[in-house]
């Protein structure tokens, strides 16, 4: 019955934004949470597979992310972007996996200490984007998680600097400087002739 209800109302949900759907979930419409799962499942799986060096458990992690999102849905401010909120939950889950294995975050991240002015690259064409994606895929394992995550969020998840800042909880200027440094690091380690 639950699934039949979902199928019947599912088609009318397409016009609702993520934030509107989240608001309905907060108001008690539990079933509609499935629309958000539909919209974000593949995105979060892709994010996890690229971010983690051992992506075998990504399915379980993504399931946990959605469960955590549902449990904490009342903390979501519907005036903000749901996209950034759920990616933040996913980011925390993936970082916890890395911590258990290899990644030990520093107490003080020097990227966030100083003021960095936003460095935009408006001339980045679709061709450049495609080139960067290939470069990232090739050189992912050579990068630290700090640089890997900004590259994935920007080039694969198509997130703007502001949204990445909300996911990672860092200043927007820091996002821009990390992207710049990540691209430089990639270009140094990867021979473009191999692409």
């Amino acid at each position, binding site marked *: 019955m*639950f*699934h039949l209800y*979902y199928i019947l109302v599912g088609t009318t949900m397409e016009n609702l934004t993520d934030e509107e759907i989240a608001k309905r*979930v*907060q108001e008690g419409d*539990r*079933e509609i*949470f*499935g629309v958000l*799962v*539909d919209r974000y*499942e593949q995105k979060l799986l892709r994010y996890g597979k690229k971010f983690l060096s051992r992506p075998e458990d990504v*399915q379980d992690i*993504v*399931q946990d992310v*959605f*469960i955590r999102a*549902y*449990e*904490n*849905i*009342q*903390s979501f401010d519907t005036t903000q972007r749901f996209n950034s909120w759920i990616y933040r939950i996913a980011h925390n889950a993936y970082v916890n996996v890395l911590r258990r294995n290899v990644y030990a975050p520093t107490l*003080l991240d020097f990227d*966030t*200490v*100083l*003021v*960095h002015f936003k460095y935009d690259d408006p001339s980045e064409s679709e061709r450049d984007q495609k080139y960067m994606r290939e470069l990232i895929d090739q050189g992912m394992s050579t990068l630290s998680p700090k640089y890997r995550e900004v590259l994935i969020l920007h080039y694969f998840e198509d997130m703007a600097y502001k949204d990445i*800042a*909300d996911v990672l*909880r*860092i*200043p*927007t*200027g*820091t996002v821009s400087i990390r992207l710049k440094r990540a691209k430089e690091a990639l270009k140094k380690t990867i021979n473009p002739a191999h692409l």
Partner: protein
Amino acid sequence: MNTEKKPFTIKETILNEIQSGKVAMRPKFFFSLKVIATAFVASGILLVSIFILNFILFSIRVNSHDSLLGFGPRGVGAFLHFFPWGLLIAGIIFLVVLERLLRQFRFGYKIPTLILFGSLILLSGVLATLLDRETPMNDRLFAQSRMHLLPPPMNALYAGARHLPPPQGGVHKGIVSSVATSTFTIRFIDEDGGTNPNDITVFLPSRASATTTGLQIGDTVLVAGDEEGATLHAFGMRILQKSK
């Protein structure tokens, strides 16, 4: 016929758990309570930081150690020696914790660490200065500590605020007992505010600016210099209070 059961998808698993009640939404008041608790703790830490910085300023004032800064490089060295570094480190630790707490909020993580931390230091410093210089709080608590009227930790803190430099430490607060052309004698003020009956002769440095002009018997002075028995060769002297 294939009777093998298809594994549930992520969506099916989640919706089933929601439907069965295995997974439930945390109520809104839980998060409101969390925000209030965080704000309360942050305010508490800010107040403690302000108090610590305020007490540092009071300690410098009550011992007149700020005068040492006008005594040249040796005076600055003496000031750094007597500075309550332990309290400053404690204050900085509290501000670091506060900065970390504030990063949980949107306005906190959008600001670079240096600016946020710098702003907290500036805010605490300004409020601490106002608290020490513009209110009688510290002086009243100090007076009460001398009568043991404060609770134990506060009493020990304020009672220990005024302290004499170590013997032969070279920095002394005293009352002028006689004045000559290039020397004068003082009687040291002890921790209880009384005076030591033994006079010490202070020799001023041989430079044009070092003079006993304006010095009167009964003036309270701070002198810093090298001690030799009952004499002190001063590198700095400042009148703290004129005789009445």
